[in-house]
């Protein structure tokens, strides 16, 4: 479980996070939603230590990440997988080396064992046999899937995804969403996804956190989200015609 306790974050005078508190449970896909600039990415980066919060704590299964030094953090980092918005694959390496890279760095596994693991996760993301391709030879959706494969190669306990659907067509988006949500259940991972895609919310939104201007404005599940009378949340949810039409049909 990841506990976020009263996180504040400022950039200069710009107070981006104003006291966020939330819990993220294993085996559950949690979504952080909100309009652009509401602080979603900042919250995630504070959780994984790419930014330092001004105050507040992030606790990974009783371990207070915020108070650890670089060396101690690395031990927790090895349990974290992350999928970046632009996939962030190493473009000088093949798909196989990208996925194998953390294994090369941190394990003493033999060649065969590592290759088995690579092929395992590639199969899991439906990219079996693409080992020798370079990132530049992949489509956006394929890159995201390699990103997921790399993130899960070390069997992480925690998985973070920043806008996994951005730049993808609806069909690929759904595929990525379902993949992440299945993996979360399968390996009992604590998964946190940042998104502003309502399709994802309605598809895999077990646990949803709505941020508004740096505050936690609402928390709930996809079944509750359409019936809330929270004004800002409604504006966010019904910003697209699609949602309105779908609800009317219901």
């Amino acid at each position, binding site marked *: 479980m990841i506990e976020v306790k009263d996180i504040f974050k400022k950039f200069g005078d710009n107070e981006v996070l104003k006291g966020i508190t939330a819990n993220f449970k294993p085996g559950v896909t949690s979504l952080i939603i909100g309009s652009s600039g509401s602080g979603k990415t900042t919250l995630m980066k504070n959780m994984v230590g790419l930014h330092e919060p001004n105050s507040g704590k992030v606790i990974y299964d009783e371990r207070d990440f915020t108070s650890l030094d670089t060396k101690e953090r690395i031990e927790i980092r090895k349990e974290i997988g992350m999928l970046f918005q*632009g996939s*962030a*694959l*190493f473009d000088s390496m093949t798909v196989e080396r990208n996925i194998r890279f*953390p294994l090369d760095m*941190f394990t003493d596994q033999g060649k065969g064992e590592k290759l088995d693991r690579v092929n395992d996760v590639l199969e899991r993301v439906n990219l079996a046999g693409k080992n020798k391709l370079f990132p530049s030879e992949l489509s956006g959706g394929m890159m995201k899937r390699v990103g997921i494969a790399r993130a899960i190669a070390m069997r992480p306990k925690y998985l973070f995804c920043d806008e996994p659907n951005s730049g993808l067509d609806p069909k690929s988006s759904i595929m990525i969403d379902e993949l992440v949500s299945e993996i979360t259940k399968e390996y009992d991972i604590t998964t946190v996804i940042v998104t502003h895609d309502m399709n994802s919310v309605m598809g895999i939104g077990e646990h949803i956190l709505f941020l508004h201007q740096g505050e936690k404005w609402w928390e709930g599940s996809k079944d509750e989200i359409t019936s809330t009378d929270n004004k800002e949340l409604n504006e966010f949810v019904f910003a697209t015609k699609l949602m309105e039409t779908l609800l009317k049909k219901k």
Partner: protein
Amino acid sequence: MVFHYFGKYILLIQAVFRKPEKYIIYKNEIFREMVSIGLGSLGIISIISIFIGAVTTVQTAFQLTSDLIPKSIIGGITRDSTILELSPTICSLVLAGKVGSSIASQIGTMRVTEQIDALEIMGINAPGYLILPKILGGVIMIPMLVIVAIALSITGGYLAGTASGAISSAEFIQGLTTDFIPFTLFVAMVKALIFAFIITTVSAYQGYYTDGGAIEVGNSSTKAVVISCIAILISDYVIAQLLL
């Protein structure tokens, strides 16, 4: 302000020299950088050196009009100016353009495409993994390139001097071998080593702290070259003052 950047630079260098996660991976990266910096620059360094030597010889001959001075001195002047100043400094300025811009844009691109964040999240010391092999590659290969440059400059000088009739082959060789001070070679190597460190670290710093997108990567790369060149010239002067 300058102190702020210098402090950031020192902190980055400190992070670079933290203990590597896995030596074998670093070793492979170092070899890759050695090939890329060394072999990759051999062509341009060779061409430049031959011409520098040729021009130095021809111009020295042109300036020595007096019959009282033996012609063999041309060989000695070519040798000394090549070893002490021309080969290490001009090669390093050229390498700042070639190697420096490539390091800055490579690391800068990794920054803006979040590849550096990805390394950090995996628990890898990104400065160490990305920058250490480049520093070592540069510090090993650039002095070697300078040795090659010195040899080719003198060869170029010999060819141009004898071909133009400015000096005979025997006179040139006599000049080369008279009054040679081995210490000048040592100075050349010290310069090459320090310039190599400057080129690789300054460029890596510029790339590492790139913020934004493609335009900023371009800016970082330009800044890397400009700042490296200035730093090379300043330290060239300081080394000359201290060692000579």
